[in-house]
């Protein structure tokens, strides 16, 4: 069997790059939040220090095998979803397995981690964790609906469920799906606000209320792995949205610019927002974003 070295390099390099970018974005978000609040803010590498510190904690506790494996589920979901997304358009290095999966697969793969984490958090026996999970799953039902509406609108418009084919459609600036199907983009980006769990949809973590919710019993290496997974997962979601709506990226600089600008939408909304209660955020997603999503589908159907 012939080994395709460029794909091997890609498989090794993609998670590393995703991790670095995700971690730096996390730091940048903290810095930006600080600047908005008229503070100086931590260095941009702060999240990296946090993760290294968590890994270098000398002790750890676990309440059982499910908690032990919870973060493992999370990182599995993050890295697997990453492998099935074309990170850089047409690059032999960063296609990975993106030809072997499609959008519906990604939708389900991205839930895998949440489910594993929820199981892990459940085993800790901490009531705060369970409350957090209950909120998180409820909220997920909220934002998945506009997200799926947006995806279905795009799938039927371009008659494909494959990310690579969607990328091929957006071969020119004017063909980006954000311009071809703006309503789907609006529905998608509103769902994206919920997916990123920034305010006003941060009721899951809510540190001052339920002691950070699901991860409240996780410390040391477990929290470190969760933060690693979270950094990669943020990058995965960003790249997914860039690939779907913003025409992907053919080099790293474009990728960074696009993902960063996209990231600023939930972040800047979050900084100036208070927090929704769970049922408020569910009903929020079931009102305007869903309506816009339905409108997007109707427009596509009417246009033939």
């Amino acid at each position, binding site marked *: 069997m012939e080994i395709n070295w460029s794909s091997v390099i890609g498989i090794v390099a993609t998670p590393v790059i995703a991790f670095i970018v995700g971690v730096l974005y996390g730091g940048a978000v903290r810095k930006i939040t600080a600047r908005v609040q008229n503070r100086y803010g931590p260095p941009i590498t702060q999240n990296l220090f946090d993760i290294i510190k968590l890994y270098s*904690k000398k*002790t*750890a*506790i*676990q*309440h*059982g095998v*499910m908690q*032990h494996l919870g973060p*493992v*589920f999370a*990182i*599995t979901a993050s*890295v*697997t979803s990453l*492998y*099935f997304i074309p990170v850089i358009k047409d690059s032999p290095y960063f296609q990975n*397995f993106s030809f*072997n*999966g*499609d959008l*519906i*697969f990604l939708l389900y*793969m991205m839930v*895998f981690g949440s489910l594993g984490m*929820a*199981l892990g958090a*459940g*085993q*800790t*026996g*901490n*009531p705060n964790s*369970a409350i957090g999970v*209950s*909120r998180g*799953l*409820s909220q*997920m*039902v*909220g934002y*998945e*609906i506009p997200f*799926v*509406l947006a995806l*279905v609108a795009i*799938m*039927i418009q371009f008659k*494909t*469920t494959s990310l690579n*084919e969607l990328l091929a459609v957006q071969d020119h600036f004017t063909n980006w799906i954000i311009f071809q199907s703006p309503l789907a983009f609006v529905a998608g980006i509103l769902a994206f606000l919920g997916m990123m769990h920034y305010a006003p949809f941060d009721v899951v973590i809510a540190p001052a209320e339920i002691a950070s919710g699901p991860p*409240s*019993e996780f410390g040391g*290496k477990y929290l470190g*792995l969760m933060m690693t997974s979270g950094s990669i997962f943020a990058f995965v979601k960003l790249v997914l949205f860039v690939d779907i709506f913003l025409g992907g990226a053919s080099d790293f600089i474009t990728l960074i610019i696009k993902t960063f600008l996209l990231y600023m939408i939930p972040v800047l909304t979050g900084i100036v927002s208070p927090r929704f*209660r*769970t049922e408020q955020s*569910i009903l929020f997603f079931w009102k305007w974003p869903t309506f816009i999503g*339905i409108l997007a589908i109707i427009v596509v*159907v009417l246009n033939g």
Partner: protein
Amino acid sequence: MVSLTTLYEITFGGAILAFIAQHTIKQLRTFIVIVTSALGVYIVWRLPSQATDISFRLGDFQILWGVNEYSQLFALLIAVLGFFTLIYSIDFMKERERLGYFYMNFLIVIGGMYGIVYSQDLISLFFFWEIMTWSSFMLVIYCCDDAQSIGLKYFVFSAIGAYAMLTAIVLIWANLETTSLSVLFENFTNLSSGLQITVIVLFIVGFGVKSAMMPFHVWAPDAYAISPTPFTALFSGALSKMGIWGLGIVLLKLAAQSGFYVWVQDIVAWIGAITALLATFYAIVQTDAKKLLAYSSIGQLGYIIVGLAIGTPLSIMSALFLAMLHGIFKAMLFMSAGAVFYRTGSTDMNEVTGLIRKMPWTFLTALFGIITVAGVPPLGGFAAKWMLYEATIQSGHYFLVIVLFAASTAAFLYLYRFIFSLFLGQEEKEYADIKEAPLTMTVPMVIMALFTLVVGVFPGIFINPIGNAMGYFGNYTFNWDVSSLLNEWGNHVDMMTVVMTIGAIFIIAAIFITIKNYRTTRYVTTKDIHTSGEIPTENENLTYAVDFYKPFERAIAPVLKRSIDKTYNLIAENLESAFDFLRYVYTGNGQTYALYVVLFLAVLMVFAELIFGIQL
């Protein structure tokens, strides 16, 4: 030896023998039951190569039994599930009373289901259908105080279904003078279009009751919850599939020929989708694990109905795939709930907590079960869900797919609640000395759990037999690789790559997290948690289980306010008061009745003269 008659003889004979053995030599009973069901598996497995059609006349009717790929698919599910649930029942039912009654009816249900799928004419179909209904009714009322009213509800709805079916059969007999299925398929278009739609609707009602289609589902949650768990697994896993088997025939063989096909498709598909969504919402607010699974079962059957109704090759494939898989995973879930019941005596999710360390295998089964139901890769459920969504989108049912997605995302809620409440959460002192369920219970469960993983990696092992079975409906070819899924736009998912990736990353990460700080990682009990410095005492239960999804319930409150069950009760109450006037007529007094007779005769005399011109 291997033929349909032997199959029926062995199954029904085994049923009677089990009943006799219970009253004479008790030790033999279990042996007879297991051997009977094992022989059933063997015969069904060997049938396709050897069986011939059996035909004989019964009065005016030609009775026809035969084997085809479609019935073979369902028969295999029945046989395997029957075998596993019976093994499971050995220990589960040990302490119960009236076991002869239980096992006799259990085997008769299995025999009745064999009869249904192998019957090639409407008379034997109806006959076996009634056998199945009656014996399952016997098992529903097997135990517990409120079995009476629940059994009655089940029976009333089964009767509605059966009479609908009987009416359809009578209509067909009256107009086509045949009861043979194959003749019916050929001559269906000879019926007038009004008759066609009547027959289709009547059959859909008849089969829809058993497959718990809305609005005929109200019997299902209670009947599933109250029947003994080994039977519940079969009830939900195989018996409800008889409705699906029939709906498949009605929708794809009869309705497809009529002019109303598009309408029937859309209406049934929407009914299925709404069934899925509402059942999911009801499942979320349940507090009893078995009832939750019952509603989940209704929801999953809704998906299957959608798949059948859409009627593209991919959607039929997904429906039958999900039907087979549902048989397995719902049996797994009911069995794990039953194992919890066996050890703790309760399936109340507000009460039982923290069994994971005591019942690891049961937990593993439940975990695989919920992952399969959720449709998360790498287990088998993903393939079914994937095909269903792709088929729904590609056949142009855009809003249907949103309802399905909403239902399947909301399904995470009740699935998590099921596994969290029973197995995770605080470990309680009350359940400190619970042991794992006995081997006869864990082994069937774990075998089925591993099977879902195999199906996840190689969906082909289901897709190819189902593809053959679909030959019954027309020419469909599925030349897929054993591990790949393909949609009509040419997009595909390669399950092998998916599973390898997930497996590799999972193992690497698991090794990393285990080796890292291995010596200084400590297990602490679930009482040793962060509670703001407070130390919970042994009897303090901190599990957050009551009203687990209160916020979500608030969000969907308008939906929950109206339930179909309540509507039926309202109708029943109104009917009751409407028929109250009959009490004034039927007073129960002999003199009044005598007066009626005299009055009747008087009226008869008057009218006879007027109308018929007869002088009395």
